[in-house]
């Protein structure tokens, strides 16, 4: 089965990718066709959150999105986070709080929080943010430092 070329804008750069099968996940396109390995592969079933990216500004689990569903979309991955003012702000909050250990869940947390702050802006309460982030799993930190990073990121918003 031939599929039409996939057109994506990833981290501000537009590209056209040929030969992407209809059942390929966005996660695999990003990692294996575009070489953006910063988006992490965890469970591949939407349970861990490690593969979170932004699709048209909203956070999405890239393991549950078919690449062709994102056709024409603008995707931001962890590699592009620092070029986004909110993304850079979130990275700084995680660094200041020391909110990472092995770092495997970190790109997912950073992108998920970035998406939430973009969506809700100053209207986001820490409680809301923590509730929304509740489906991102971390096995190392015990989450306390991540909670602190969320508080820092929220407090530092204009």
């Amino acid at each position, binding site marked *: 089965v031939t599929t039409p070329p996939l057109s994506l804008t990833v981290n501000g750069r537009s590209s056209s990718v040929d030969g992407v099968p209809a059942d390929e996940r966005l996660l695999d396109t990003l990692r294996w066709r575009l070489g953006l390995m910063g*988006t992490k592969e965890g*469970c591949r*079933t939407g349970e861990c959150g490690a593969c979170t990216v932004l699709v048209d500004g909203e956070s999405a689990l890239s393991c549950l999105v078919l690449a062709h569903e994102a056709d024409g979309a603008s995707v931001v991955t*962890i590699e592009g*986070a620092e070029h986004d003012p909110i993304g850079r702000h979130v*990275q700084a909050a995680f660094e200041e709080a020391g909110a990472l250990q*092995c770092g*495997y*869940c970190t790109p997912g947390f950073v992108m998920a929080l970035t998406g939430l702050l973009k969506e809700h802006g100053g209207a986001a309460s820490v409680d809301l943010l923590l509730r929304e982030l509740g489906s991102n799993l971390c096995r190392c930190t015990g989450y306390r430092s991540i909670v602190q990073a969320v508080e820092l990121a929220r407090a530092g918003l204009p």
Partner: protein
Amino acid sequence: VTASIRPDAGVKLRGMATYGTDLSVPGMWWGALVLSPVAHGRIRSVDLSGARAVPGVVAIGANDVPGLVGGNGGDAERPPFPRETIVYRHQPIAAVAAPSLEAARRAAALVRVETEPLPVKTDLESIFPDWPGSGAGNSPHVAAHVRARRGDVDRILGEAETVVRETYRTAGVLQVPLEPHACLAEVTDGRWTVRTSTQSPFGLREDTATILGIPESSVVVDGTWVGGGFGGKNSALLEPYALLLAKAAGAPVRLALGYREEFLLSRSTLPSVVRMETGVSHGRIVARRVRLLLDVGSSLPGRDFATGYSIGFFLGPYVTPVFEVEGYAVRTNKPPFGPHRAPFVPQCAFVAESHLDEVARTIGVDPEAFRADHLWTEGARTHFGQAVGPFGLPAAVQAARTRAREWRAHLPPDHGVGIGAGFWSTMTGAGGEARVRLMPRELVVLQGEREIGSGSVLAGLSSVAERATGLPRERVRIDYADTSRAPFDSGVFGSRTVGALGRAVDEAVRALFAEVGRRMGTAGPVRLEVADDEIQAVAGTSRRAVRDLLTSEELAGDGLVAEGRHYGSTDAIDESVVLEGQFYPFRDFTGAAHVAEVSVDRATGTVRVERYAAFHDVGTVIDPATARAQVEGGVVMGLGAALTEEAIWADDGRLTNAGLLDYRIPTMGEVPPIEVTFIEGFAGAGPFGAKGLGEPPIVPVPATIAAAVRAATGAHLLELPLSAERVARALKVV
């Protein structure tokens, strides 16, 4: 001490860290394992012809191994693929590789295995229905037996005023790293190279060489960033298969587990049943007997490590004049038992603490006072006669009791506060080496471990070098090399990295300073400082730029190089203890006391942890931020083992909850505020008096939660985890 910002924050926050799962090279092939559809069976045939018919595919099974590795064909006891008998469900029985993952998976599905069924054993107690009455004897299911005894237990128990007898059960728990196992192997010119996510490159090299029956010198292990280890990435899992496939394919092969497979192949803590007997007279423990059945899965006879070191932990850090502890390692049709952060010891501590509480209540005394009265003190000896040494646990327990009193002063209904304590050791007996290179502008520490996330390598070793030299963090670089170029180290396990490898770094700096002092013409102490962007050596009143102390060859090359090594020893076991079987004596003791406040929903049995406090004997805090992070992470991992984590195997050997929805690790919403306090001043054997901190934080957690649940509800639970179902059932009986 400088800096609380993690040295690896930048690379990880930008998605630039390469983990095992991220490995790829041009021309790489993809591997896939063929997993056994049965848990126990004699192999009639493994037919690879279907897989081999797929164009471009290589498929290998047990018969292909000798041809691929040459020589004797590898470890006869532990071959990569079973030759005659499958011993656990999902055991790898063949492997395939192809230029695409899709082709590899298609080929793997075409492998046919025929077996003659053998009885599947997954439940400890059904193997020994009469235990502990009859003992486990010489059953073929016993992989190891250990017994340690001091004094006449039968007589003293017979004479005791009160004897309390209970039976406890604990569940299997899995490591569940976010990163599944993954590696990339290549075989060229007789060099078997594997890049992989590992806690122990050198241990893995030895393991791989043994399994494949090839010289260690021909194996090179190159570690990646590790996406969570927790013991699960200590030894070889995928690497021998990836190397065999690479050899067969004549191409680099990537082999990675899917997340479900990560659960299915996990070698971790398995279930146990423990019979406890404690005799008390005049308010003091006079004698105790412990009998343990520990499931070790398909561990080979003689290859069990868990029973021999864990058995002493059932007595807790409490003075016990007369005892007999006996453990049987029982083989079942599960993957082999493997290390999981303080392997099996949180479970031991749960049993030890809960049982002593019951003993105290039975004789009508306060459980926390009873435990505190029996606690080891500095100068005491362990059950097996080793010196406890400087020991901050009594101070930690005292602090915990104070906090518990404060929390109990204002307690809503259905809330309860409990205390748990536990001891652990720093495995400084496992050796390590490090090399330092002093350059005009930086000090480089070359060593063989990758950072697994705990911070012990990048922050821990750096902090040791900073303290030893006087340099700030930005002038110290922790460098890594693969096993062909780095100095040897045992691995990032056993809470040993700072304690043992850190000692090697400290020794290397001492050797470096001896040479610097010689060049400066002084035997006095040396330190390093930064001035005008250059490192300067200072000794007494003399000060020289490092640039001026180095020879021209050193300036052009590696700088001034010095090496350090640390190989600890183990203490002998006391002669008054009669031992049978293989024991692993611990040393460099540390301890922790924890306090939890929980609330319990009486209708559902759901336990919510409201707040938590951890008091840790740590000797000396080497890096404050990572130390605190270790405790928070360990506590929360322990909350999982205490409340929700339970690996459940069906009678046919299938792990029934192989996934994150069914095997419940803690999530952000259920984590309480955690207060962390370090008790310093009780020096350990590590550099600057440091003790290990990777594993101790998980040890007291299930015991603490059980004590709090009992305080909240009166329910005395004898089984881990304290799942909502078990708590609700217990509340109906209370």
